[in-house]
């Protein structure tokens, strides 16, 4: 909440004296809680899935605990049932034909754990997808950490509107692909004995895809025309390869029931802003899933019946700010540089003069694949 920022920072000159430091509270014990996340889509190309895990102590001791061996199914209020099976520890997918939600029907998630406890969500309606009006982006200068670091970058926003008169509750799943290059061509290679011409494939241009974690949600409650305007999506920093040539954001918009939306809303509030004296106090999160066999058993989680719409947007290298990427500088080899015998074999080198060579020990400056991408151009790339 902005107010909190006003209060804590602006207000008062106390910024001069205030400080933020990392802090881990000593909490004795923790309540183990089953956390269930299930989703089904009206888009047959997307795989329904249910992940089940148990909460772990703040110390992260022992790592995440997957709940294995559970019996999972999605039930429709018309009596049909769609069983799931465990494909990976804690991850369950349909064992038969995937469930495709239909209008006018309601669905619930049913989980029976190994200890014979039964967890169920409420019956959730299917809400047809709300079209995406646009995905926009603009250059912004943003504080990126609690310690007051600021970065330039591109911020993405979603706009959507519904012709229906009921408020829409939206969540976005984001993944990005970006095109980037390395500064030096792969012309010569040091084979451990001599410099030879390189005749293999070119590694200067790559594409890299990644999923963008985070909770991106918005609703149209109280907005004219039942629309969602300027809903904040991700921020892409000026640092790194992402904005060096062209960046593409793929937006999967989920239209979800209010009860599921409230889970994400609460969770986002909890991890984005809670704790200030002018913010809503944190609380135990629940969601739309409960343990129906034992009301005293703590459970949390969300089951979403999602109507899906897609959009993809491309952003070229911004001109409003500098994009700062990996620093590549050549070091001469030979008498006034690194001695040849210290160089490992099969590294790329550059010819900087007649019979004079230089290289970067970081081969990321010759081979873009070493930065995580692939040289295969994605089919959707424009």
């Amino acid at each position, binding site marked *: 909440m*902005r*107010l909190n*920022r*006003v*209060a*804590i920072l*602006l*207000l*008062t*000159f*106390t*910024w*001069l*004296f*205030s*400080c*933020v*430091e*990392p*802090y881990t*509270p000593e*909490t004795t*014990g*923790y*309540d*183990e*809680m089953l*956390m269930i996340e299930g989703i089904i889509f009206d888009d047959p190309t997307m795989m329904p899935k249910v992940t089940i*895990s148990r*909460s772990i*102590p*703040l110390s992260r001791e022992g790592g995440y605990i997957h709940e294995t061996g559970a019996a999972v199914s999605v039930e429709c209020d018309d009596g049909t049932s769609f069983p799931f099976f465990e494909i990976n520890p804690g991850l369950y997918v349909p064992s038969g034909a995937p469930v495709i939600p239909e209008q006018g029907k309601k669905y619930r998630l049913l989980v029976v754990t190994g200890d014979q406890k039964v967890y169920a969500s409420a019956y959730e309606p299917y809400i047809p997808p709300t079209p995406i009006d646009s995905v926009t982006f603009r250059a912004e200068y943003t*504080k990126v950490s*609690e310690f*007051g670091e600021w970065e330039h970058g591109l911020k993405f926003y979603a706009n959507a509107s519904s012709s229906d008169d009921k408020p829409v509750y939206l969540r976005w799943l984001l993944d990005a692909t970006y095109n980037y290059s390395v500064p030096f061509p792969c012309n010569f290679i040091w084979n451990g004995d001599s410099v030879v011409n390189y005749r293999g494939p070119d590694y200067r241009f790559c594409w890299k895809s990644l*999923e963008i974690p*985070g*909770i991106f949600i918005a609703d149209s409650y*109280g*907005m*004219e*025309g039942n629309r969602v*305007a300027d809903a904040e999506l991700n921020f892409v920093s000026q640092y790194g390869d992402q904005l060096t040539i062209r960046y593409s954001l793929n937006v999967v918009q989920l239209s979800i029931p209010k009860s599921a939306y409230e889970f994400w809303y*609460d*969770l986002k509030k909890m*991890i*984005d802003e*809670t*704790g*200030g*004296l*002018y*913010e*809503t*106090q*944190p*609380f*135990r*999160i629940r969601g739309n899933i409960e343990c129906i066999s034992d009301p005293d058993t703590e459970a*949390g989680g969300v089951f979403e019946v999602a109507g899906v719409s897609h959009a993809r947007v491309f952003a070229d290298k911004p001109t409003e700010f500098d994009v700062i990427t990996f620093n590549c500088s050549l070091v001469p080899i030979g008498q006034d540089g690194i001695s040849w015998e210290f160089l490992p074999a099969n590294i790329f080198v550059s010819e900087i003069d007649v019979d004079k060579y230089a290289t970067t020990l970081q081969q990321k400056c010759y081979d873009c694949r070493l930065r995580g991408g692939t040289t295969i151009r994605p089919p959707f790339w424009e």
Partner: protein
Amino acid sequence: MKRRITISLLAVILASQCLAQSGGDIAIAGPYRDITFSMFAEQLSSRHNISVYYRDEWVKDIVVNLPGDTILLSQALHTILDPHGIRYFDRGNGQIYLTGETDIEKNRLAQIPPPEQEPEREPAADSRISDDLSYEKGVKRYTVGRRGEREVSGTAIIRGYVRSVTSGEPVIGATIVESGTSNGIITNSDGYYALNVRSGRDITLDISCLGMEKETCLVTVNSSGTLNIEMTEKLIDIQEVVVRTGRHDNVRGIQMGFQQLAIKEIKTIPVVMGERDLLKVANMMPGVQTVGEGSAGFNVRGSSSDQNLFLLNEIPVYNTGHLFGFFSAFNPDMISDFNLYKSNFPVEYGGRLASVFEFSTRKGNKKRFGARGAISPVTGSLLFEVPLVKDKASVIAGVRTTYSDWILNRLDDRELRESNASFNDLMTGIHIMPDSRSSLQIFGYMSNDRFNLAGNSNFRYSNQGASILYDRQLPEGWKIDVAAVHSRYTNFQDNLTYATQAYEHEYSLAHNEIKARLTGYKFADHTVVAGGNFVLHNLNQGRYIPTSPWSFVTERDFGKEKGAEYAIFVSDEYRINDRMTLYTGLRYSFFDYLGPKEVYSYTPAMPLEAVNIIDTTYYGNGKRIVNYNGPEYRLSLNRELAPDLSVKVSFNRMRQYLFMLSNTVAISPTDRWKMVDSHIRPPVADQVSLGIYKNINSRALETSAEVYYKNTRHVVEYKDGAELTTNPLIETTILQGRQNSYGAEFLIRRNAGRLTGWISYTWSRSLITVDSEYLWEQINRGRTYASNYDKPHAINLVGSFRISRRVSLASNLVYNSGRPITYPTGLFYINGVEGVSYSYRNEFRIPDYFRVDASLNIEGNLVKRKLAHGSWMFAIYNATGRRNAYSIYFKNEGGQIKGYKQSIYGVPIFTVSYNIKLGNYAVE
């Protein structure tokens, strides 16, 4: 040098001196070990400029042994002389006369002529013969009532005003005691008093007050009548280091759970940013806590901050903080003093459950022009007082403003550099005393705050208030007070960050009140109060309005509320005997929630949620929607076990019809007030308390211990994650429960000597239970949890050490338990990010709070005739630099949950401030 006089000279002095052993409040520096009396006398002379007159033969066998480094002179003399049967008397002005075995007081009384022989001036109805027979400065002789008139009951009432001779301002809290008895009274906020005495005889009244020369009046009481007393402000001519604080007599007064502070008492206390602030000092009193430094609002005896009533000359102030609470909204130069009631509320106060903070402003100098100003790093202030008609009418105005932007402009943070914050306040008043029996005060108040964050969000709030207060003495020992009060609070916010989502919201609250109170002193040993008040509340919860043509925000109206709150009350303070006082009172309060309003009905046995609305009823303008009413009892008993020891017990019930919508830990300026309505019931609190009070060394050291238990029904709590800012259906966000608060408060306060101040320890708990047969009406699954402000242990030490008359050192030490907090107890992984699972509500605590402050105060020279007087304060706040936790929070960064601790004042803060006023050191 030894001074001797003959006994005959002593007799001459005796004849002109009427006051015996009145001094004794001079503190002397010790210790003295195994010295002769004459050496002791010499040291008194050289160190304290005190002359002792005696005969050698009386003291030749006396060996003086006085341990301790600060001793009251009277006590020292008694210790030394009593074993030898030697009497003395203190003539004042640093002159002590030993009188051998003669008791000077008896002698003096013997010399007073009987009343029949007095010359008598023919007075108007109630007569006061003034100054016609002054024996000496400081002792005045009066006759009250008509000669020959005698009260049938044998009891007469002396009443009148005590005023300052220099400024004409009422002297509040002056103690008037019938000498040699425990019969006494304290002047009220108008300087008014009424004292029952036996008629038809002579009495001596001792009038004393902080910062005033002690007055003694010889009064011949024929019948009931008026006696107005003027007191002289104390110019510290002699080397006297006694500061008498705590004008309320905590042993003798009926009040308990009561704190009183005068602005001059806090002058030397170190403060952050150089802002002298009564509220910050009040926070160091037992039973008063805040959720965090720099936040607005107080939690008194384990109650939420909207349960405090702040009255500024009877104007209720709905937001008492500037800059979100970093400073109080009351200009310290304008405030003369304040009283804080934590229990045993006088019957005329109601409408809040936990406390009454009663502020009185200066009424203005009626003798001469005055001005003062102050400069600190954050604010500047100016105050003027002008006599309009000498001794009759005065006007006063004080203004304060901030210039904090220069600090913001220097910050590294770009967003903050482009922000600005400002506040100001203005108080002005006219005080008129048309005659000796009545007084009229017209007072106005305004405070404004505004912030702009990076040019795209604005927050504003303001208080406005006005009051007209009139009081008049009626015949037959009655006094009437009437008041008309207006108060208005507004807040505003907008957010222009995204043009498509830009909105603004303004809220306003108006309070219009009339009240009348009749006080009767005519009944022997009874003081009777009766009266009533009527308040019309108009709340406009405001509308969300789109503020840019591109904004898609739809207009949302949160509606208006109208309510009438009224009460009648009666009380009796009965002095059963010299040692016992009983206060009984009944206040009966009513609240009507009025239309126009649409009221929703919800499906029974279902959660109050928008989806469960089954019906809407419309009520027309002024139509009563719901009425609440009930008695509020007040009962207290004071039993004096000894003149300096008493036990008190009290019970009271309070009702509250207005509450603040706030589900954040601290009060924020965007919080709105809301009335109880057909879905939300008024909270009711019952409190019992028991206290023991002991004074040592004639109030040089005051000690008290109080325990209390408070039970509040229908306390307002909020559902998990309740959204108050965007949801117009407030009843869907609220649950009501039960609150139990209890605790023990211990206070030792030193009022005399070079070292003054107090140390207090409070142990308290504040626990809330919201349970129901329905799951959705439970918080924490019905389990009891600590309130946000439950801090079991609190220690406060406030000390001031006077090095010389111009230089003093002061220090605070504050310790309290960390406030409760809901911590994460587990992590889970969802949608590619870490999420947190939180504990039950307020299951944990943030780290304990500890702070030490120090200040050095240097007054300008003490020349009596000077144009202006300045003083410097060098203060260091949080001297140890401890990073006290203001908040602890958890954020997801790069997919991982990280915990952070924020401190507001994480380093020692050094401030220099300068105060200036017209006149000399002693000008108030």
